[in-house]
């Protein structure tokens, strides 16, 4: 994982007259644990969509390990090593939990034996405490369990960089601990994780680096304590009451 290199250069996205993402640049070269915060509508989800290939930037470039990935279709970005979850969970409803795991497993690793992939899936599901739901249709899962399933699916892709769009939102406190555990474990395995959250407790507890987005632009990027005391951040965001 030493060759990790994600680079955004002046990435912008306009929706008609709205500048949703405004000349965002940053680089990730270590398997860091990065928190991303910003008020609602700051452009966090849009930035995730730009990085994962769901949207094409209006301008700017994104490179992952030397490959240009902006504007590439999502499956291609995924194969290049960048995986993401969705703010609103997108479980494959009428497929079982195991099938949900096998889709990325086989897409990423077409030559692997099913038994090997299934064993790996079981390991991940156990870490996420949903191993007992293996043969359940994923639409029968609770919202929180579906979120865990999404996190699990990502690991089947073995990505170098993982972006989690609001993993804690609307999740029961007990499952939040499972998610925190997951983030730490995945990070220990040498992956870079960027997670978007409104949960300030989790953000300051977990992240080694904090990026603050406001009106689509990065207004702070650095160590959490430094960012916390940054006057621009206090003014734009932390000073006001949190909306979630």
């Amino acid at each position, binding site marked *: 994982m030493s060759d990790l290199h994600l680079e955004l250069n002046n990435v912008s996205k306009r929706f008609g007259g709205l500048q949703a993402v405004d000349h965002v640049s940053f680089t990730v070269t270590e398997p860091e644990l990065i928190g991303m915060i910003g008020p609602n509508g700051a452009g966090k989800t849009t930035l995730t969509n730009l990085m994962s290939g769901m949207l094409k930037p209006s301008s700017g470039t994104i490179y992952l390990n030397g490959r240009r990935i902006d504007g590439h279709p999502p499956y291609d970005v995924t194969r290049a090593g960048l995986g993401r979850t969705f703010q609103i969970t997108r479980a*494959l409803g009428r497929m079982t939990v195991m099938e949900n795991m096998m889709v990325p497993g086989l897409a990423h690793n077409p030559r692997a034996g099913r038994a090997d992939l299934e064993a790996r899936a079981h390991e991940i599901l156990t870490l996420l405490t949903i191993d*007992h739901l293996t043969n359940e249709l994923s639409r029968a899962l609770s*919202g929180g369990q*579906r979120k865990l399933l999404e996190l699990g699916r990502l690991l089947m892709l073995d990505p170098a960089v993982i972006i989690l769009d609001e993993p804690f939102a609307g999740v029961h406190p007990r499952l939040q601990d499972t998610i925190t555990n997951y983030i730490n474990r995945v990070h220990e395995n040498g992956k870079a994780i960027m997670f978007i959250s409104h949960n300030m407790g989790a953000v300051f507890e977990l992240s080694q680096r904090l990026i603050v987005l406001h009106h689509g632009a990065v207004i702070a990027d650095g160590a959490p304590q430094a960012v916390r005391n940054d006057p621009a951040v206090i003014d734009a965001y932390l000073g006001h009451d949190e909306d979630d």
Partner: protein
Amino acid sequence: MVVFRRFESAIDQGIGRRKLGYLVIVLVVLFFLWFPNDTSQSNYTKTVFISGFFYAIMSSSWALLAGIAGQFSFGHMAFMGIGAYAAGLIARDGITFALLGVSISPESISAFGSIIIGTIAAGAVGLVIGWLLLRLRAAYLALFTIAFSELFRIMMLTEYDYTGGSNGLSLRPLLQIADVDAARQVEYYLMFGLLVVCLLALYWVANSPIGLFLRAMREDEDAASALGVNVVRYKILVFVFTSMIVGFAGAIFYSDVGSERIIPEQLEILQMSLIIAYAVIGGMESLIGAAAGAFISRYLLEAMRQVVITLPFGMTTYDGSDAFVWEPGFWRFALFGVVMVFTLRYMRNGLLYPIITWFSGRDIVMKETVSRRESDDNHAARIEADDE
């Protein structure tokens, strides 16, 4: 019910449901292999079976396209027609590829060669249509394919100098067997063999990783794509694959195997709707269910042309007979519509679904995991997450 439970547990402890299921399939296949040897069966019944096999191919391949891959297409019959018309036109007129400088005369082409070219033509159009449909979802895809198949039908109707218009087009006969009985026999086995081969091919795809990707695509294209599935490739692939299957089946069926000519009437929306109805009734996410749905429906629709009703309690009709003959005519289709409405409302997975799941043993698995399932995270958290 008690008897059934006893039977069920005896099976579970004995050979197991899955094996019993395979046994039933083997018996059904043996029945169909034996059937034409039953000398009491008329050629007419065999003809009904032959068309039943053909429609089973149509509905089961549509089930892969719509039920498994989620591409609710109305163009399936048109692709079948493309296969048949292309085979017929090439066998009659030959073809010249000006760019390649290759010219194939009608004399140099065999009936089977024309069928292969028809199949390729269906696949090629499937490729173009699949590509055009890439960005269209659900209702728009249905509308687009309706427009496409109507366009094709009207072209075949209007260009009567080439296509024979409403009189239809004769393809080159595939089999040339003088004896009518012997011919029926061979046609029967040919069409049944084709159904078996098509079902095996469909099952092979559905159970391969491709089948898993197709279902992922049906559930959520964006999520599938984010999980590494090349949605564009698989969408086009499923259109090309199913178009070639029905193009091939159509070209064979209308090469005087099941029918002596292809007519534009066969490409009407009603006919396409019937293919869909058979699949829905049998279970559109189950290939074998859709095939069985089509075969049984075709058989019943034929059988219902004339229904002899014997009157009870010694009642007689006005002319003194104790039975009367009801000819439902078009009302058969109305009854059929009622069955379809019932299926969609109460048995979304098709009327055969309970039987198929029973044999697959899947409902056992479901029951177990449901009962083992934790009733953890409280309901509120769940609702919150769903409301984001």
